[in-house]
């Protein structure tokens, strides 16, 4: 344990923690929305994220962008072309995320809901679906279980620095993009008619049904929105990270779920707060323990336990409806 590196690396690790944290927060939304509405852990949300990450790869591949150009350079794009390429990637990721979440709901959850199954069963069904999805990518993907690398379409360079911490252009895109997505989501849940339906179902499903809310539809929309957010998260994560594997979902999903619980699962603002806190704490833990990433994870879990001991329902509490977002 050395605090020297921690102090030296304080701002750089905070900045990259913020970036990672905003990705966690976006994935955490998928957990938190479904939990708010159905009171169950959507364990397979992590695989929705993983699928969407491969969506970005698929998009790049379809646009015919090679790993390296013929003369051995990175296939950098500029200006409108770059924006177009990234936009297509984001779109494809989100579409794949939304679609796979909807299919997941149809296949793994709805039949159980119709049968009034106990809650544990949903968890196991979700775990089964999650196994099937990640193993399917490992089995049938072009490179099977290897690590996939995304071609670099733009140069990652330093924009400016805060307290000696470099802020790269991809950091800015990730954080701003994630916050934008979350803003849209909060507006959707708070202002739109469907959003009101989501809040109504979260508050009391039976009463909402009596009031004429199409509960099945609302649940489907909730999954769709969670999937779209996971899709966006996957795009931003790939922008920053650039590699993916079939097991990616599991690794990030556990963290994102932790983030959702830390902030108060079922609470949208909680997901944001929990995600960003978790990202930063994890990076601090990593730098305290001589850049051992695993100790970062340990630190994050220890902090989670401490927080839950003091606030048993997470930092912001768990109600989606009461806190209005």
């Amino acid at each position, binding site marked *: 344990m050395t605090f020297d590196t921690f102090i030296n690396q304080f701002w750089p690790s905070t900045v990259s923690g913020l970036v990672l944290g905003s990705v966690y927060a976006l994935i955490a939304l998928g957990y938190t929305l479904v939990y708010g509405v159905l009171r169950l*852990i959507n364990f397979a949300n992590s695989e929705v994220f993983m699928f969407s990450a491969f969506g970005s790869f698929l998009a790049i591949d379809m646009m015919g962008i090679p790993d390296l150009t013929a003369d051995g350079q990175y296939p950098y794009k500029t200006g409108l072309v770059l924006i177009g390429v990234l936009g297509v990637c984001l779109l494809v990721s989100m579409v794949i995320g939304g679609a796979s979440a909807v299919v997941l709901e149809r*296949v*793994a959850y709805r*039949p*159980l809901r*119709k*049968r*009034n*199954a*106990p809650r*544990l*069963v949903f*968890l*196991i*069904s979700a*775990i*089964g*679906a999650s*196994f*099937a*999805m990640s*193993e*399917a990518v*490992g*089995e049938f993907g072009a490179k099977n279980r290897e690590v996939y690398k995304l071609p670099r379409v733009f140069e990652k360079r330093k924009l400016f620095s805060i307290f000696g911490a470099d802020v790269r252009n991809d950091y800015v895109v990730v954080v701003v993009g994630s916050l934008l997505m979350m803003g849209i989501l909060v507006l959707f849940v708070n202002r739109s*008619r469907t959003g*009101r*339906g989501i*809040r*109504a179902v979260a508050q009391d499903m039976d009463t*909402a*049904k*009596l*009031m*004429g*809310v*199409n*509960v*099945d*539809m609302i649940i489907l929309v909730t999954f769709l929105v969670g999937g779209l957010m996971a899709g966006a998260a996957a795009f931003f994560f790939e922008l920053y990270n650039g590699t993916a594997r079939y097991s990616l979902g*599991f690794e990030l999903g*556990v963290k994102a*779920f*932790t983030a959702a*619980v830390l902030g108060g*699962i079922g609470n949208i603002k909680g997901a944001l707060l929990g995600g960003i806190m978790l990202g930063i704490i994890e990076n601090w833990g990593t730098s305290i323990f001589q850049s*051992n990433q*695993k*100790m970062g*994870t*340990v630190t994050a*879990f*220890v902090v*989670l*336990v401490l927080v*839950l*001991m003091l606030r*048993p*329902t*997470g930092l912001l509490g768990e109600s989606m409806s009461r806190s209005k977002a």
Partner: protein
Amino acid sequence: MSDQYRPGDDLPPGPPPTAAAKLVFGERMAAAAASRRQFFAKWHTLPKPARWAIGALGMAFLYFLPVVEPPIITTPDTNFASLLAGSVVVYVIVALGLNVVVGMAGLLDLGYVGFYAVGAYTVAVVGSAHANLPWLLCLPIAVAVSMLSGVLLGAPTLRLRGDYLAIVTLGFGEIIRLLAERFDWLGAKQGFSGIKAPPKIGPIEFGVLDSKSYYWLGLTMVVIIYILLSRIERSRVGRAWTAIREDEDAAELMGVPTFKFKLWAFAIGAGVGGMAGVLYASKQNYVAPDSFQLKVSILFLAAVVLGGPGNMPGVVIGAVVVSYLPERFRFLDTSRYMWFGVALVVMMIFRPQGLWPRRQHGRRGEPPAADPPPFEDVKEGDPDLEGGAHGAATPA
């Protein structure tokens, strides 16, 4: 709206009260229970010696499984005895232990692998790596250490409910593995090898290559644990767990010291998990952090839920299915875990209450999964409920 509003005027005619559906289910449940009772009644009409003989034959068959290697059941692609000893009996012990926590007391534990790892690492540390205690002493030490870890985890966290407990236990499982990976004293990444083997019992030796003896040891442990746990289940402690599972607040009001009994459930579950860890470590002859990943924990939970949480014969079957099926279908090669996942989803859809669910008392408990409720759910496009307004009833 008219001047005089009578409640119920603007309500659509459907859906009928869910209580009615519950009643229908109650009847079906009763029918299922009746057929089960019939079977057991028939079983109990057999004379006692006959029952004993059938039971003894069944046990003998189980003990001779690795010797007989019956066709169909035996695994063509892996060593059958080794699979039975290193995986199936270990999973059965683990499932029995986890069933105490999840099935009996109703506490969701996603990090059970942590206790299993504690048991395995304890026997490695005190048996060979840092001390040289005999195996028969290692076993109780390992169980005690695992129970202690259960109490240490449970004491601060058992106030949490449901899913919060799940994530904390999940974190615990990960922390144990990551700590073992980090500290050289615990063998770091490569772990320990040369774990102490149980002493020779008569002609039965516990060699590295001989899996049958480990299977017999494991099966004996299963029998002992099964008997002990079923005694506990029928005792005051077991009834307290049932009360906590069904309704914690009501249990507390009725004077059940819920925290104390939850802690006991954690400790006993952890102890059994630790015992499974000891068996596993001795059989494999090595422990390494990679054997204790979160995925293993999830498989453990799948075993319990698949079998029927709260019913001991059920979880035994669940554990056998989870540990045996992927190996039996090894010819599917790497895709077998994908099919396993698909199978989990399908089984959960068709038997949500588990392969062999626990008996329901009275009309309470989860309704069985026969057919979808006949009239409980409103179909999409229902003219009465569609076109209406989400939330239009409440002013914005």
